[in-house]
């Protein structure tokens, strides 16, 4: 049966794969009434085929029911729906609720792990969790303290649990996991604590560790083949990472893996990005610091890397490369190509051929991006594939104890983890963005295990000489690298978007609005103010023939710190940003799921 199913997917290419696609999970992923993964599908498109709620009737949307999570911290991710059950997760302490949609969301079971609260302060930027994953009758939770738990979806009983890292060394988790075939792939956080980060595969049934691939270090630790793993079409060669660090610095090198995972069953490759190198002071870690800030393509069975592409060699601005990789099939110069599109923190929207790692497009997805003039696309050039850094904004060139001013984007990036969506109906990406710039001053720090290892002073503020707001919600043409339309937002858009077959795109705002816009024009069709700011991702499901839209409210995350800082002339500065400075004037802490539907 499995082999037949694989052929049905057109995956005849995969010959020697030891484990085949997870049939049971694929069935749920292909049912638009359900949501089995945070990313909606393996391709991370966040596109739903549901179309009952559409561009002409979305204005009639109303609240169907609500649910309080009982926790007042930043709520990222979204609930899942499998059959008649909804699974809701919370930030630390990472409670899981199973709700019965057949009985007005009655709580069927609740799982609350016991975690040492000392993990809380080790988590950079709030105790968020980007949600659960479902596979083969199990709900998989990856807790803040890096414990991975498989729960029986029906009873909440623990199938197995395994510890992936040590919070005492600064190793924590905020990310969701990727169930793929007979494995579950997990990442790790700790880039501000000098962790040598990695992805790890555990056996889906037993929790036994199968492989671990580091972001930096010796080839065997990274699961990189010097001859077969390529970067921009060429083999990476021996010690490709070690050569780009001074001495043993790779051992505290960062490159964390707290973002999203995508998977292509045809090519049998999984994709993700690695984060910033530690410390934030570039002078203290000479070299390209490979493979931090890198797009990775790995075989999920062995972990072996097929190709890598480093977007920001020798990071000088904390432009973590962890944002999602969205897999689409589109025509480039008249030819069908398997594409991977990625909106990086560094402000460039990249499109690559996901089979080979060939770089096709790298364009700014916010015009204010200024730290590099462009990415060198000349294949004959020595700097091919590298950003051409502007000296004025180079914190490396300006050096320690010098404040480099007016760098766009800020360290939180033109886009952070909040995932974009893609509609195959419009061939457009819908991207929640930050419109924030910064001053950045690196200085010398010492490393202590389990302690932050930052080494730079930052101040962030709305992009100058623009609309004064700190965010945009844009539609992006990934093949041509162009913005199609852009909606200005008062605050950073820190919520994951959802595109639907009903020609509607949904997203949330930090003030707490759920917004619905027209997928072709960006015109606002509906908005509703939920009890708290939204940093969660919009989801949709269908129950008894009726389509619902759900969103978690609960302001927090890095967005929760407020962003107008470091103004050198407070009066001029606040004149411009005025009311935007304090998010607390617009919303308050919360923890609530709001579910919408059309009136009967």
């Amino acid at each position, binding site marked *: 049966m499995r082999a037949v199913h694989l052929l049905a997917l057109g995956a005849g290419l995969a010959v020697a794969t030891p484990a085949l696609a997870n049939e049971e999970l694929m069935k749920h992923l292909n049912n638009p009434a359900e949501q089995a993964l945070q990313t909606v599908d393996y391709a991370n498109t966040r596109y739903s085929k549901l179309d009952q709620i559409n561009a002409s009737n979305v204005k009639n949307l109303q609240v169907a029911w609500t649910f309080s999570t009982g926790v007042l911290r930043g709520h990222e991710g979204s609930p899942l729906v499998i059959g008649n059950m909804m699974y809701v997760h919370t930030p630390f302490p990472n409670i899981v609720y199973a709700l019965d949609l057949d009985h007005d969301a009655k709580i069927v079971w609740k799982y609350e792990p016991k975690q040492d609260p000392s993990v809380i302060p080790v988590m950079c930027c709030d105790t968020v969790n980007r949600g659960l994953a479902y596979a083969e009758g199990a709900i998989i939770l990856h807790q803040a303290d890096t414990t991975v738990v498989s729960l029986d979806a029906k009873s909440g009983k623990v199938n197995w649990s395994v510890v992936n890292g040590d919070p005492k060394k600064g190793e924590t988790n905020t990310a969701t996991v990727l169930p793929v075939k007979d494995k579950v792939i997990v990442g790790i956080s700790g880039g501000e604590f000098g962790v040598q980060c990695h992805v790890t595969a555990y056996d889906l049934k037993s929790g036994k560790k199968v492989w671990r691939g580091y972001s930096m270090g010796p080839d065997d630790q990274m699961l990189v083949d010097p001859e077969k793993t390529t970067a921009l079409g060429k083999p990476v060669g021996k010690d490709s990472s070690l050569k780009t660090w001074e001495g043993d610095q790779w051992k505290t090198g960062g490159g964390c893996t707290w973002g999203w995972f995508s998977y292509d069953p045809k090519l049998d490759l999984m994709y993700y990005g690695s984060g910033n190198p530690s410390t934030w002071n570039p002078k203290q870690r000479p070299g390209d610091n490979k493979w931090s800030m890198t797009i990775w393509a790995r075989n999920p069975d062995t972990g072996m890397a097929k190709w890598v592409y480093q977007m920001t060699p020798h990071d000088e601005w904390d432009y973590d490369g962890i944002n999602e990789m969205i897999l689409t099939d589109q025509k480039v110069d008249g030819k069908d190509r398997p594409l991977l599109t990625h909106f990086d923190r560094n402000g460039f929207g990249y499109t690559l051929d996901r089979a080979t790692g060939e770089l096709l497009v790298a364009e700014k997805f916010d015009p204010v991006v200024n730290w590099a003039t462009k990415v060198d696309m000349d294949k004959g050039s020595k700097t091919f594939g590298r950003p051409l850094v502007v000296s004025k904004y180079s914190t490396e060139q300006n050096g320690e104890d010098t404040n480099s001013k007016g760098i766009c984007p800020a360290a939180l990036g033109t886009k952070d983890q909040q995932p974009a969506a893609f509609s195959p109906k419009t061939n457009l990406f819908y991207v929640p963005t930050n419109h924030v710039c910064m001053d950045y001053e690196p200085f010398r720090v*010492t490393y202590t295990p389990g302690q932050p290892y930052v080494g730079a*002073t930052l101040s962030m503020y709305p992009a100058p000489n623009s609309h004064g707001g700190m965010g945009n919600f844009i539609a992006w043409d990934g093949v041509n690298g162009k913005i199609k339309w852009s909606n200005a937002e008062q605050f950073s858009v820190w919520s994951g978007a959802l595109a639907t077959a009903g020609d509607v795109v949904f997203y949330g705002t930090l003030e707490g609005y759920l917004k619905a816009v027209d997928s072709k024009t960006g015109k606002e069709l509906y908005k509703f103010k939920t009890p708290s700011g939204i940093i969660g991702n919009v989801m949709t499901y269908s129950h008894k023939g009726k389509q619902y839209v759900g969103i978690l409210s609960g302001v927090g995350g890095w967005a929760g*710190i407020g962003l107008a800082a470091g103004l050198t002339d407070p009066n001029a500065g606040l004149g411009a940003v005025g009311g935007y400075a304090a998010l607390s004037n617009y919303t308050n802490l919360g923890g609530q799921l709001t579910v919408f539907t059309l009136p009967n």
Partner: protein
Amino acid sequence: MLHLSQVALRPFVAALALATVSVVAVNAEDAKPADKSLANSLNPDDKTAEKDDKLLAKDAAVKVEDGKYFDAEGHPTFHVTENGKKFDWYAYSGYRRYHAECHVCHGPDGMGSTYAPALKDSLKHLSYEEFIGILAGGKQDVSSSEQKVMPAFGDNKNVMCYADDLYVYLKARAAGAMGRIRPGDKEEKPEAAKKAEKECMGG
């Protein structure tokens, strides 16, 4: 020691600063005007500063030793001059260290966040000893709906070597001597600060 004669002008200081009592007694009779070089000169137009006159008086520097200012209780304090443009080295250094080590939780300019208190307010009440104690030992406030935990920075040189700098900066924010700004100008880095940094970070 140079400035001890000026301390004499403020009788209440003598009671607190026990170490200086004898000096005070000697100089008590020749009352001179306050040392203008110790007075703060704030930016009168900075609406982001939230000036607190009581705290400004309490935190006023009464002596300076090699670029480090001290209040009447003998604790480090800030020194602001040129209409709020220029800050003492420690306040400036505290600004820098704060925006590296603290701001990801406590927000820019000590304004607080959804998960950590606004230190511009906390430092209105916290004593120097309490501040250093929390910095080194951490703090927990865990209930069913909220889990606020501050780590212990006792082993972290990047924080503890600059504990006084952070204190001085946050006192300046709490008293309203400094608004939501990056200090534009600063007094020269004192030799004592250079020496202490080298010893503390290197050891």
